[in-house]
């Protein structure tokens, strides 16, 4: 899922300072699962904003909505009927949702209530960890199911580097060395010897973020 976390409440209060009538839009997809932007968080944030405004003796009208997803036009369009009655949309979806709001509603500003952080999963309740950087060319079959792009701080393909010590990365004593994990895993699978006799070729990063905005078109699916 896309993992995000709430912006500090005072940052949000400052961001919406000019507006007295806003839509607060949550999303029932990834950000609801990571407890940052679902229906529940919409309620809490709306209440916190109301408290901040009352504290300053100013009223604010907040329309709370939580869309199925903010990354699909048909759901984003669901607020079309009343969007024009409000001065801004504060979206607590990921960055995609905020941008979809901005693209669909040209006359009112779309504001981000979350900091979108990474693609990852939950380790336990309340703890999330990054797993994928969406580089566009998956090599997990060669690295024991552990991603060197994400788990190695330098995204090395022929690691580990000299900063690896006792299984930890030099970036932080708590951070595991991705390449130590890969090598340990391949040894456990009995694949280490035959897999690492050759170097990885230079990776083509144009499928990652270095190639500009990415787009996928499936002709078989188009209407």
């Amino acid at each position, binding site marked *: 899922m896309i993992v995000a976390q709430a912006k*500090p409440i*005072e940052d949000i209060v400052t961001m919406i300072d000019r507006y007295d009538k806003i839509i607060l839009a949550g999303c029932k997809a990834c950000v609801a699962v990571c407890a940052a932007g679902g229906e529940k968080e919409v309620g*809490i944030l709306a209440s*916190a904003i109301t*408290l*901040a405004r009352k*504290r*300053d*003796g100013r009223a604010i009208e907040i329309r709370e909505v939580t869309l199925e997803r903010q990354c699909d036009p048909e759901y984003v369009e669901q607020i079309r009927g009343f969007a024009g009655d409000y001065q801004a949309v504060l979206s607590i979806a990921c960055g995609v949702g905020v941008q979809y709001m901005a693209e669909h509603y040209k006359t009112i500003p779309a504001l981000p209530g979350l900091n979108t952080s990474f693609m990852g999963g939950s380790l336990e309740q309340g703890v999330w960890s990054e797993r994928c950087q969406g580089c566009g060319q998956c090599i997990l079959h060669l690295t024991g199911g552990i991603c060197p792009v994400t788990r190695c701080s330098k995204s090395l393909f022929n690691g580990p580097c000299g900063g690896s010590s006792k299984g930890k990365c030099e970036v932080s004593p708590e951070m595991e060395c991705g390449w130590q994990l890969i090598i340990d895993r391949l040894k456990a699978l009995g694949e280490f010897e035959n897999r690492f006799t050759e170097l990885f070729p230079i990776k083509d990063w144009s499928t990652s973020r270095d190639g500009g905005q990415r787009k996928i078109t499936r002709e078989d699916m188009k209407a």
Partner: protein
Amino acid sequence: MRLDYPPNVKIVRVPCTGKVDLLHILKAFEQGMDGVYVAGCLEGECHFLRGNLRAKKRVGHVKRILAALGINPERIQMYNLSAAMGGRFVEIAREMTGKVRALGPSPIKTGKGREFVEGQGEEKKQ
């Protein structure tokens, strides 16, 4: 026991403090309460095992939200006592009433701005 507790304490009954949600507490402040306290069972004695411990975490979260908003986090408290501790119940009601009275009316009600600066741990004079 015929004990008196301050009449301004309004009781909201819940089956277990584990049922108390962040929003229940925030809405109370929104509606102008000067202070809120959650009275749960003694730690380790929850019939539902962790209800009062969950409530404690939620109260902590509300404290952080209030502090960030410049509202004194002392306005929300968690107390633990058993159903058989009537005397303690009265004591807590008086203690909390006294604490909140000393803090004065909630800025949410008066609209007078921040009363608390995070990190400094002391009230800002209004």
